[in-house]
C-alpha cells in the first residue's frame, strides 16, 4: 500500500526555472522517508506542494490513494489530513502548550491532549507559553500538535536543523520512537545525511529540483553511481563511527 504517490510534479515561481522539476516517486505506508538535498535543491517546495501550501504547475499528488492535486483539481490544505512540523516549529505564541495541541481538535480535547502530552513527556508543562520552553520542548509540542488530528501522513521540515549537536542525537531518537509508536507514515526533509541514516527507513536524494535516487536505507551504500552521492560518501567516511552506529541501530 502506498501512502504517497507523486507523478511528474513541477513547480516554478514567476515562470522562471523550475524549482521542482518532473518529480515522480512513491512512498510505502508505515515508512519513515527522508528527502535529502542541498540548500536550493527544491526539497522545501516539494514539501509545500505535498502539504497543499503551494499550487503545482503540473503533475499529480495522491495521498493514501486519494487525489490531492492535478492540473484541474486542488484539494484545500485544511481537507488534506496532512500534519506538518515546521523548521521553526511555528507554535502559536499567544496560546499555551495545551491550547496549541488542542487547536485543531473538535471533540475529546482533554483526553487527547493528555495522551499526547504523555507521549511527548510534557505532562508537567500544559500551561506554559512557547517562549517559556526550550528548543527541544517546542519541537515536541509542535509534533504533538500535528499528531493531534491523526493525520494520514506526517511531514517534518528540517526537524533537527535548529538543534545543537549534543541535543540532536537525543531528539532524533525521541522523534523516531514517537513516530514508530504511533505508527504514522512520515516524510522529513534534511540537508544532513546523518539525520536520514539515523531515523529513516528509505531515502530520496534530490538535486536541482529533480529526484536523482530513491532507495531503502540499507541500500544507500550499494551500487553508488551518482557523483554527488559519492562525494557525500567521502564526507561520510570521516564520520565512520557515527554511520556505523547509525546503521547498527537500524
Amino acid at each position: 500500500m502506498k501512502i504517497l504517490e507523486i507523478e511528474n510534479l513541477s513547480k516554478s515561481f514567476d515562470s522562471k526555472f523550475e524549482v521542482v522539476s518532473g518529480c515522480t516517486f512513491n512512498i510505502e505506508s508505515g515508512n519513515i522517508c527522508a528527502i535529502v538535498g542541498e540548500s536550493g535543491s527544491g526539497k522545501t517546495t516539494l514539501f509545500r506542494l505535498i502539504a497543499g501550501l503551494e499550487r503545482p504547475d503540473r503533475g499529480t499528488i495522491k495521498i493514501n490513494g486519494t487525489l490531492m492535486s492535478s492540473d484541474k483539481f486542488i484539494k484545500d490544505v485544511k481537507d488534506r489530513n496532512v500534519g506538518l512540523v515546521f523548521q521553526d516549529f511555528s507554535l502559536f505564541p499567544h496560546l499555551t502548550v495545551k491550547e496549541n495541541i488542542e487547536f485543531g481538535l473538535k471533540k475529546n480535547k482533554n483526553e487527547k491532549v493528555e495522551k499526547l502530552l504523555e507521549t511527548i513527556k510534557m505532562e508537567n508543562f500544559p500551561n506554559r507559553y512557547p517562549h517559556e520552553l526550550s528548543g527541544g520542548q517546542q519541537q515536541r509540542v509542535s509534533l504533538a500538535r500535528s499528531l493531534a488530528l491523526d493525520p494520514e501522513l506526517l511531514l517534518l521540515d528540517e526537524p533537527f536543523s535548529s538543534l545543537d549537536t549534543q541535543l540532536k542525537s537525543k531528539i532524533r531518537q525521541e522523534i523516531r520512537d514517537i513516530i514508530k509508536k504511533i505508527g504514522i507514515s512520515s516524510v522529513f526533509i534534511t540537508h544532513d545525511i546523518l539525520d536520514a541514516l539515523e531515523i529513516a527507513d528509505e531515502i530520496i536524494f534530490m538535486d536541482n529540483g529533480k529526484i536523482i535516487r530513491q532507495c531503502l536505507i540499507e541500500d544507500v551504500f550499494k551500487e553508488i553511481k551518482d557523483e554527488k552521492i559519492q562525494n557525500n560518501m567521502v564526507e561520510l567516511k570521516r564520520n565512520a563511527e557515527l554511520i556505523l552506529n547509525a546503521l547498527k541501530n537500524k
Partner: protein
Amino acid sequence: MFLNLKHFKRDFNKWTLLIVAISLFLAIPVFSILISLFRGSGEMWEHITSYFLFDYIKNSTVLIIGTGLLTFIIGTSAAWIVSRYSFRFRKIIEWLLFMPLAIPSYIVAYSYVGLFGNGGTFINIFSNLGITIDRIEMMNIYGLIWVLSFSLYPYVYAGTRTIFQSFPSQLKHTAYLLGVSKRKYFFSIALPLASPAIIGGLFLVFMEVLNDYGAAKYYGISTFTTGIFRTWTALEDLQSSIYLSAILVILVFLLVLIVKWLKGRRSYSLKKTNTNQKNKNYRSELKGLKKITYLSIVFVPIIFGFILPLIQLLIWGIQTFDSMFNSDLISLAYQSLMLGLSTAMIVVFLALLLIYLSKWNYFKPLNVFSKVATLGYVIPGAIIGVGIIRTSKSLTDLFSFHYDIEIGHLIYNSLLVLIYAYVFRFIAVAFNSIEGNTLKLNENLSESSYLLGYGKIKTFFKIDFPLLKNALLSSFILVLIDVMKELPLTLILKPYDISTLAVRAYEYAEDERVGEAALPALFLIFLIGSMISILNYRLRVNKD
C-alpha cells in the same frame, strides 16, 4: 503572461473577484477624473492657462521645495539629538516633538497672524515693554513655508527617529575605529542609512503641502488646490477644475517616480547582530555649550510648531469663551468624533480585507488592484472631492435622462458619500501600517492553522487577529486623527446639516473672525492630542 489561464478554473476563487470589485469601487474618483479628461477642456480653461496656471505651478513648486528643505533640517536634526543623546525630560521632549501634528496647519497659519500681525500678541508684549517693533509680515509665501514646515516636520521626525534609534552601538564604534570623525559619521553613514525614512517622510510632507487648502487660502497664495476650488466654485467650471486636478495628479506621480528613483536598489537594512550580543543604542550625555545648543535645536520646533500657536489660541479662546462655548460647540465636537470613529472603523476593516484578500488570491498579478485602491493618499482631497462630484453628476444625469428618476438629493447631501471619500483618501494610512505588521507575522503560523483543519477566515480570527490587535489600534487612531483634521474634502462634500470642528474653525477665520475660530480649534487640538498620547503610550508599551 499577465495571468496564467491554464489553471483559471482551479485557481479562481471568490477572493479574486472581491479584491477586484472592492478596489475598483474605491478608486472610482480617479477613474472619473481620467475619463473626464477626454471630454475636452472647460469654458474657462484658456482664461486659467493665460492668467493663473503659471502661478499655481510656481507657487506649488516653491512651497514643496521650501517646506521640504526646512522639514528635512528640523526633522532629522531633532530625531538625531533625541536618539543619540541623553538629557533630562528627554521622553517628554520626544513626545512634544510630535505635538504639532495635533494642530492642523491652517490653524497654525491663523494663529501666526494673531501673534505677529498688526496689533498681534507678540507685537503688544514688546510695545508694553517700551520696545517698538514692526509687525512681521507672515501672509506671503515665505510665511506659508515657515508655517507648513513647523507644522509638518513630525512626518520626517517620526520615521527618522525610529531608524536612528535602531542603530546598534557597534556601527558607531566600527566607524570611529576606522578613524571616521563624528561629523563624517553623521553625514556619510547615519544620514544615508536613514534616507528611506527621510524620503518617505518628505513624501508625506509634499502630499500634505499639495493637499493644503486652508493655510494657502488664508495667506492668499494661489496653489493648485486653491485653484481647483476657485475654478469650480467662483468660475463655476467643473471641467476645468478636473483639468487642473489631472495636472496635479501628473505632478504627484512625478514625485512618486522621483522618490522611487531616490530610494534606488541599495539596501539600507541593518542585519540583526548575534542575539547573544546586546544590540543596544547607547546615548551620550550632553554637557556645557553643546547641551545648550542641542536643546535649543529641539525646542525651536516645539515652540514654533506647538507652544506659540497654542498660546495664541488659548488667548483667543479665553477672550471668546463666553460667546463661543455653547451646545453647538459640543455638538460639533461630537459630530467630528463620530465621523472620525465611523470612518476609521470602515477604513481599518477595508484595509484588512484588501490585505488578506491579496494573500488569499491565487492570481497574484491581480493584487495590483489593491494598490490602486490605496492611491487616495497621494491624491489631494480637493481632487477626490471633484472626482466624486463628477461621478455623482454622471450618475444623476444617467438616472434623470434614462429613467426619469432624480437621485441628486441622495448623493449631494449624503453622509455616506463623505465617508466614502474619506475612506478612499485615508485607506492607505491603515493599509501600509497593517500590511507592514502582517509581513512581520510568521507565515507558517497561519499555514499551521490551515493544516490543522481551519479555513482562512477562522484562521484569521484565531491566529492573525490576536497578534495584530495593537497594529489595528494604531492604524485606527492614525485614520481618526487624519479624518478629524481633514478640510478640503469635507468642505466640498459635507451635507448641509453636518459640520466639523475643522470646518467651523475655517469658516470663522475666512469670515475675518479668527478669534472665534479658536475654541473649535482648541477642541480639535485637545481631541487629536489625546489620540496622539494614546498612540504614543501604546507604542511605548509594545516596545517594552
